[in-house]
């Protein structure tokens, strides 16, 4: 039996480059050969509902697809800290301040879990951050919208996290082990987020005239972008095939979007919010809500970089990443100094 260390080695010496080449160069990999037989066996495991773990055989497409999806999910969590972070210093009560801070902290933590999961696939966090900065990796479009009022904090928690929950509950059954486990952990934490948002909206809708107007205004601005979070309509998503085949993706965009609409409309009506969709109507025959057309032109425009906050979000992330470089370098330097004194520190 050979004891093998995990294949993504983050030891920061020159061997990092060597190790990464080891991973990428298939012919040197002692672990497995890519061939049809192995692909078929892999698919059989998927079809039988087995989890794929980091050291298991996987087709290169599976690995790449997952790296892309998980890292973009992680980036979304981290970028998502910004619109909500915008209102921390203006939170109107000590309780609200603590709750909002704890929520944003969770988002950071979720990003962390997801970066961890992605790293099991052979990509480093440095690489993922670089991909984010160069635009090679994307993040969820919803965070390119601004948090304009305190009611936006309510709307974001209720609608945006609400939509994320629908997606994440589905992803708990994704085939890749670390991603599935991260999603289970995230789902446990996410329900407080949605309640936090809904509580804010509820309080405002039973408050002053100004508060009600503020809440309705936030609803009007966040509803449609929340629907867009589920991605294009099924008939417009040609690339889902592999994701579905490999059980990375468990349910279709429209299915998830419908779930979100069905549960949210009732919540909105309960507290007196008007749905900003004149075509929204409960369909007795299907048992679901029919809704008006989504503005996909806006979706495309924002996702391509021309939304209200795209530039700002990226500049913020780049700025603080760069400003933090000296701190990270100092931590590394200190570590090396200690290692040279041969302590109980492993280099």
């Amino acid at each position, binding site marked *: 039996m050979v004891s093998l260390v995990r294949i993504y080695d983050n030891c920061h010496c020159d061997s990092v480059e060597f190790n990464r080449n080891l991973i990428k160069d298939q012919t040197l990999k002692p672990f497995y050969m890519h061939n049809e037989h192995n692909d078929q066996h892999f698919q059989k495991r998927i079809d039988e509902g087995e989890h794929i773990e980091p050291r298991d055989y996987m087709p290169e497409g599976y690995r790449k697809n997952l790296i892309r999806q998980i890292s973009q999910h992680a980036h979304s969590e*981290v970028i998502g800290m910004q619109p909500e972070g915008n209102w921390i210093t203006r939170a109107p009560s000590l309780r609200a301040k603590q709750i909002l*801070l704890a929520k944003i902290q969770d988002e950071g933590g979720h990003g962390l879990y997801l970066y961890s999961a992605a790293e099991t696939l052979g990509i480093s966090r440095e690489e993922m951050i670089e991909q984010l900065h160069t635009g090679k990796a994307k993040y969820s479009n919803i965070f390119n919208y601004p948090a304009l009022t305190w009611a936006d904090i309510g709307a974001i928690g209720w609608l945006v996290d609400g939509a994320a929950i629908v997606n994440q509950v589905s992803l708990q059954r994704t085939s890749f082990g670390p991603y599935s486990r991260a999603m289970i952990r995230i789902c446990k934490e996410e329900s407080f987020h949605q309640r936090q948002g809904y509580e804010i909206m509820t309080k405002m809708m039973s408050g002053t005239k100004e508060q009600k107007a503020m809440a309705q205004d936030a609803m009007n601005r966040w509803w449609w972008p929340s629907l867009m979070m589920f991605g294009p309509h099924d008939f417009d998503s040609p690339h889902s095939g592999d994701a579905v085949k490999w059980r990375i993706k468990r349910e279709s965009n429209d299915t998830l979007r419908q779930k979100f609409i069905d549960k949210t409309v009732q919540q909105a009506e309960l507290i007196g919010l008007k749905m900003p969709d004149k075509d929204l109507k409960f369909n007795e025959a299907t048992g679901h809500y029919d809704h008006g057309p989504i503005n996909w032109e806006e979706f495309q425009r924002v996702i391509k970089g021309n939304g209200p906050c795209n530039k700002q979000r990226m500049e913020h992330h780049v700025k*603080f990443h760069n400003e933090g470089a000296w*701190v*990270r370098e100092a931590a590394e330097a200190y570590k090396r*100094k200690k290692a040279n004194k041969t302590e109980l520190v492993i280099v």
Partner: protein
Amino acid sequence: MKTNENLFTYCLRLADDSLILGHRLSEMCSKAPVIEEDLALTNIALDHIGRAQAILKYAGEIEGKGRTEDDIAYRREEREYQNHLITEQQNGDFAHVIARQLYVSLFESLLYTELEKSADKTIAAIASKTLKEIKYHLIHASDWTIRLGDGTEESHLRMQKALDDLWMYTGELFEMDDIDLAIAKDGIGVDLTPMKIQWEQRLEDILAEATLKMPSALYMQTGSRSGMHTENLGHILSEMQYLQRTYPDAKW
């Protein structure tokens, strides 16, 4: 001054430090050098805000005018806040954040160790809970001080500058006015005089390990006891109080 008024003011002093420092730390959200540190700083912020809430609630009860912790936190004017000046200083770079945490956490670890023996049961109980948090805050701050002090040349210079910049706000931590003296005499508060030497000694040890020099400037800023703050506080309050001021009748 009646004893209750003294106690009320003393509570404000304890609470305001946490209120303002917690606020400053919360500004660091999404700005830390690594995502793990974002979580760490947020935890410390949450500890402080929670502490402020608990003490302000008690202060409201003592005052007996029906003010809630939010009323006291959000509806006072600049001159009524009693936080030490060091807590309202701008975050600056990470070294400044850590230097401020080091100075304050060291002070608080000594202060709250004594407050745990307070004749006031509520304050003693809060102190007991707080000590657990402060232990962690101090380890976090001193570990980072050492890493940055003994890291790269750049981190060493930045850390030294941060310590030097904030040094003039540390003297105030050990000041006692008549109210502090009266409260200490009642067995509720703490005599801060012997604390300064302990604080300096512990600080020296940490800085030595960090290869940093103990600042030695003699001039110390002062004023928070009489509500004389730096220009920073006004801006902090503008943001903090904005919603409560703009919608005075609204409940949040």
